[in-house]
């Protein structure tokens, strides 16, 4: 592993080691570029992942204080936990369930496709599908995505058989075990999925792609990576010419350190990324870095997510098998006659027994609540994963009344749902119910909106610098050597789970950064 001196001004500093940061680190180091990765969390491994659900949650989850406001369901149901992501080497790719669909071409042209929707801040992506597709293909190979490039699909689990039978009764056509970054056979030096269903607790087989045991060790092997764990970036500094030149952070002992940098890339997930930009205000940039247009933290998207549980009179044992390996894709279309724009997926889902009542069920107690629990064996599950509308006022801000362990203002997450979001959720809940009722469900229970797992668009790419934070390469409009390298840079949320797109954009950004470094543009 490289040791890069604090005063060394030649390195790229990446903040965060998840889907975006971990991938970027590998791509830069393998091109011979020296990289420091600052990761706030600890390092686990397939050996140390806890197999006790509650313990695994505490081991991996970002639990530093945050606040929230707005009318979305999360504020009511999970007041202290607006978002659910990791704080560990590998970021949320340790927790994730590895569904890896692509955007549809028309989803990237969101504003052109959907038109003027009042109360939204929709824009088109500054990248065409043709351009992105090249990187999707690279990303899919990198992740070993099933049903792409000759990789077989995962075998159907019990939970999927239920979803499939219902979907087919309704006439749905695009129903399969999903495009998953999970090994349906051993490949990439990693084992095959043994269907243990603990994807969220950390895959002890390493069958599920995570930067923790792919990109990061490979970056380390180049000799160009200096990975500093339990190091929390608190501020990015700049020179008088407005270029960033150092990252201030707290190390594992709480000591303040300062790493000089040629280029800084932020990949702290959709809430911490804008928070760090806002925390880095200065006399030159009084609104925070890269925020001359006032766009940092705005247009925050989280997708429409919610569970549906079908209760049957025969056993399903939904917990056996890969958590999310199954999808109905027919509703991924823009058909305003449904009462909303944009599309959604219905994805297979199951929750382990301890998590099920905490996250999966609507508020309730007494006989009715208990009767749902009594049926745990006989429950099949899925969730909606759909596009939410960007809104200028749905935003990440600093809450100066609440401080973190270092005395810094925490992030506040504000979300007011758009009528389009509500109409989509209603439609999806009706369809999910029909899927289960079509094959004789005794009852369908609709769950709440869980804490946001897909935090995106809070420092978005835009062709027009007034409408976003970065250009099409994640390079901030204001500061040429400051990059956004995670889901924050996505322009809109679309219907797909975000991570494949985050990885594709990181691969593309790495090419751009190394090219620009070679020609001394940055």
């Amino acid at each position, binding site marked *: 592993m490289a040791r890069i001196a604090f005063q060394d001004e030649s390195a790229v500093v990446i903040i965060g080691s998840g889907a975006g940061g971990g991938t970027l680190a590998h791509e830069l180091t393998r091109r011979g570029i020296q990289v420091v990765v600052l990761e706030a969390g600890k390092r686990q491994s397939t050996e140390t992942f806890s*197999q*006790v*659900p*509650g313990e695994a949650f505490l081991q991996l989850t970002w639990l530093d204080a945050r606040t929230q406001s707005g009318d979305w369901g999360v504020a009511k149901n999970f007041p202290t936990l607006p978002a659910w992501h990791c704080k560990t080497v590998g970021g949320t790719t340790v927790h994730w369930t590895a569904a890896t669909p692509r955007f549809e071409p028309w989803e990237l042209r969101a504003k052109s496709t959907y038109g003027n929707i009042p109360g939204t801040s929709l824009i088109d992506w500054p990248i065409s599908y043709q351009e992105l597709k090249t990187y999707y293909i690279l990303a899919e190979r990198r992740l070993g995505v*099933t049903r792409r490039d000759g990789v*077989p*699909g*995962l*075998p*159907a*689990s*019990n939970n*999927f*058989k*239920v979803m*499939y*039978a219902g979907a087919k009764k309704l006439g749905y056509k695009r*129903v*399969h*075990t999903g495009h998953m970054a999970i090994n*349906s*056979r051993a490949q990439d030096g990693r084992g*095959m*999925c*043994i*269907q*243990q*269903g*603990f994807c969220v607790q950390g895959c*002890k*087989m390493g069958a599920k792609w995570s930067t923790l045991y792919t990109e990061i060790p490979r970056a380390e092997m180049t000799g160009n990576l200096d990975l500093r764990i339990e190091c929390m970036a608190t501020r990015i500094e700049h020179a008088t010419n407005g270029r960033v030149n150092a990252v201030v952070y707290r190390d594992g002992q709480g000591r303040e350190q300062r790493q000089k940098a040629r280029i800084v890339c932020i990949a702290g997930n959709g809430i911490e990324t804008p928070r760090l930009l806002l925390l880095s205000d200065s006399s030159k940039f009084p609104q925070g870095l890269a925020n001359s247009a006032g766009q940092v933290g705005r247009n925050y998207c989280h997708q429409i997510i919610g569970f549906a549980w079908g209760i049957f009179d*025969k*056993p*399903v*044992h939904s*917990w*056996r*098998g890969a958590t999310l390996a199954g999808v109905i894709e027919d509703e991924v279309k823009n058909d305003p006659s449904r009462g909303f724009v944009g599309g959604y997926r219905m994805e297979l889902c199951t929750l*382990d*027994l*301890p998590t*099920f*009542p*905490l996250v999966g069920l609507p508020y309730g*107690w*007494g*006989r009715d*609540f*208990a009767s749902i*629990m*009594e049926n*745990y*064996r006989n429950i099949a599950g899925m969730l909606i994963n759909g596009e939410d509308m960007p809104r200028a006022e749905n935003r990440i801000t600093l809450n100066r009344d609440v401080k973190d362990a270092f005395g810094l203002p925490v992030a506040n997450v504000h979300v007011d749902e758009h009528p389009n979001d509500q109409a989509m959720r209603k439609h999806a809940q009706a369809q999910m119910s029909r899927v289960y009722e079509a*094959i004789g469900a005794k009852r369908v229970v609709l769950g709440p909106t869980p804490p946001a797992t897909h935090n995106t668009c809070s420092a978005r790419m835009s062709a027009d610098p007034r409408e976003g934070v970065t250009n099409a390469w994640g390079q901030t409009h204001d500061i040429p050597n400051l990059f956004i390298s995670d889901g924050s840079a996505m322009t809109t949320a679309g219907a797909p789970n975000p991570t494949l797109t985050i990885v594709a954009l990181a691969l593309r950004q790495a090419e751009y950064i190394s090219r620009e470094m070679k020609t001394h543009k940055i």
Partner: protein
Amino acid sequence: MDQLVTLNRRELLKSTTGLLMGWVVAGSPLALIAPGRAWAVDLTAFTSSEGAALLSMARTIAPHDKLDDAAYALVIQSVDGDASKDANTLKMFKEGLASIGTSFAASSESERVEALEKIESSAFFQTMRVKILQVLYSNPIAYAYFGYEGEAFSKGGYLRRGFNNLRWLPEVPTEDSGPLPAGA
């Protein structure tokens, strides 16, 4: 099950304020894990009758008739621990217990539900409810009762242990599924 039988016995040195105890019911799922055992939970914040009232409250909020009292006792043990560590929590619980009255545990289910509906918005009720969700379903007694098999990595996953053994619906055609690895 050692979890229960030794349930905070090491805390016995401290002065205990109450005790919850019971016998593992023959034929209950718990009997499979702890045959013929007695269990006891020492309370350090609550009296025995307060413990019994809390247990009855837990049984009303999450009524699983055939689930052993021992599982509910784990919830009480956990709130007892919280209350003995923090004076405000203890105060909240004591006041909450006073609000449901001394005859709570002895009254009928419908009376208990009625009493709880009256205090549903209180911190006392909500703390108990969340505690039940956190503790009641995350222990071996509950796993056995609800048929949840938990962690399977140590047993080779569910690949050969029934992940696709559902037979009451048609099989998924190969093109929408995927090949089973050899031997599965």
